[in-house]
């Protein structure tokens, strides 16, 4: 399990947004994230300004972009979080804590099909 910190979220958010720009294109990502206060990204999805709680910002980003393609967002978030977890050693004494991946995934609203099942 991964001990989460603001820098972790920053890093995950940046990597995640870069992937979203590649997947959906800059116009779609920027247009959909313009209402999120405290977040400014450039044309490649690199975070230029981030204010407030990175965790909350990430949750809001995921929520907004999931409206474009639920699967694409979940899949790329999984990839980013998995890659991020590989880079950070897992301290033995915090292994009982929920991972950042779990926290983020729990915050993603269920799609209509998930709800049905």
């Amino acid at each position: 399990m991964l001990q989460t910190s603001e820098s972790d979220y920053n890093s995950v958010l940046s990597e995640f947004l870069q992937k979203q720009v590649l997947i959906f294109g800059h116009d779609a990502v920027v247009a959909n994230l313009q209402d999120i206060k405290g977040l400014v990204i450039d044309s490649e999805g690199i975070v230029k300004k981030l204010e407030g709680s990175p965790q909350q910002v990430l949750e809001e980003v995921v929520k907004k972009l999931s409206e474009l393609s639920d699967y694409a967002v979940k899949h790329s978030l999984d990839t980013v979080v998995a890659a991020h977890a590989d880079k950070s050693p897992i301290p033995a004494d915090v292994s009982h804590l929920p991972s950042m991946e779990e926290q983020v995934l729990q915050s993603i609203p269920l799609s209509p099909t998930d709800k049905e099942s």
Partner: protein
Amino acid sequence: MEIIVGILFLSNFIFAGIVIHMLRSDDSKKSALKAQKKDAARKYYQAKVLQDISEEIGYSLHIQTVAQMIVNSFETLYELTSVSYALTQNRSIVLKTVMKEAVGKKYIDKVNSLTLNSLYTLDESLKGYTTSLTTEQAKDMKSYIALHFDPMPESYFIIPLIVRNTCFGVITIASRNKNAFSQEDMNMVYKVVGQAEHTIERIESLIQSENSRMINLVASLPTPAILFSREEGRIKISAANPIASQILKLPPDPSIDDIVWRMEGNMQLQTLIEEVYQGNKSIFLKEVTLQNRWYKVYVNPVYSISQNEVIGVTLFLLDVTLEIESEKLREKFTNMVVHELRAPMSSIKGGASLLLKGKLSDEDKEKMLHIIADSSERMLMQINDLLDAAKLEAGKFAVAPDAANINEIVTTKVQSLSYLASTKQISLDSDIDSSIPVFNFDKMRIDQVVTNLVSNSLKFTQANGKITIKTEMKDKEVIVSVIDNGMGVPAGKQNLLFVPFSQMQSAFRRDGTGLGLYISRGIIESHGGKIWMKSVEGKGTTVSFSLPMDLEAVVDKPPTPIMPPGQRVIN
């Protein structure tokens, strides 16, 4: 005066204010109306695209068709420069760009690169796929060549195409103009595509359910059947039921070639199935012999009621062994009847001609008259047999039971046939159980049965042989047996003797229609009795029948119709 001027000035000011307010209000109404119109157009577009998708998605869900349809709908909606779609198919990526405006190579390269990068980000494994690139000019493409510049995609957005958590492609909408697409327009496209994905998933699920129903249906058919369907443009076997696998000796995962080879043919089955798919009609393929049975092979289309189109093709092997054998038997029977009736008819005709000439002596005249009488009798018997058999087949044969003495029939029969037996040097006698009482049965028909059994024994017993007619009583049944020490019947042929025209299949062919035992069986079974045979080849034959003695109920009833042997009347 000043007051009046002041009032006029104030009233003008108020009037101007009212006019300005009204004009402003009119503008805001116009802009609200414009927004409503745009919103209605969006909703109309959304409904139209979804309707088109529902109507156009076929059985095999041609992804390229769906993508092309979505792309076409965008072309009419936006002021865009190009629409591209990249689709994964058979370990390759097909990337197509449709240009609405003339652009240079740099633009197309950039759009292609953006499209492929999106696809690779969604699924890294696609990087190993081969990619084919095509470009196409839209029919109404605007030309900007004269403008002497090479535009780049300044605005673009990409829509992933995902069904059942699998990415099968992306669509890129791009424009050479900056800020060409509003958030609302972009989000509506994502929404439409998302709904299209759900539609595809629902249709896929419906198709899967139809497919599994179809496979279960084929598997449970008692007739050999194989189900084919088209997957990724190729005809494949979806299911072969157990009986088809057994008869065609198919391997566990059969190919179309396996089926062709097993059906002893070199036909182009794949092409024929394709024809059935396209032509929407059934085809009779051929007649094959498999494991000593005849089959007619038919290829039929399978319709989907929900989609009103051909969704598969079945190959049926219809077992026609019985029909073919029956046809052969009928053919032989016709030949036999012609032959059998022609012989006595020739005798009658010849005898009558000689008599008409009037040159015969009295002795010869008498001989001729006897020949004519015997031949007529023989013909009559054969015709009666045929009529009885026909009645049995039609279920119109009836018996009329009445009180009668079985021993009397046997004794009379021995007396009447003794002369004929003696001419063949065969002894004919009876062994009767005198305790058998009078009981109800159809005397004439049982007499016919006994005559038939003794006639058979006389035909198949050699000189110095012996025939005995025995009667006995067991429980509430009378058993009559005709026992001979003739040539006997091979074990494999014994049961066949009770089916119509069986004599023709026998190596022991003698005069007669071969209907005697069939009719006898019908008569006995109509009395509620049984008929059976015990025979040892070279040693002799015993044919027995039983008659139940409790027939009071039958006496009070009208004649009972007889069904063909083995069948019964269903009330």
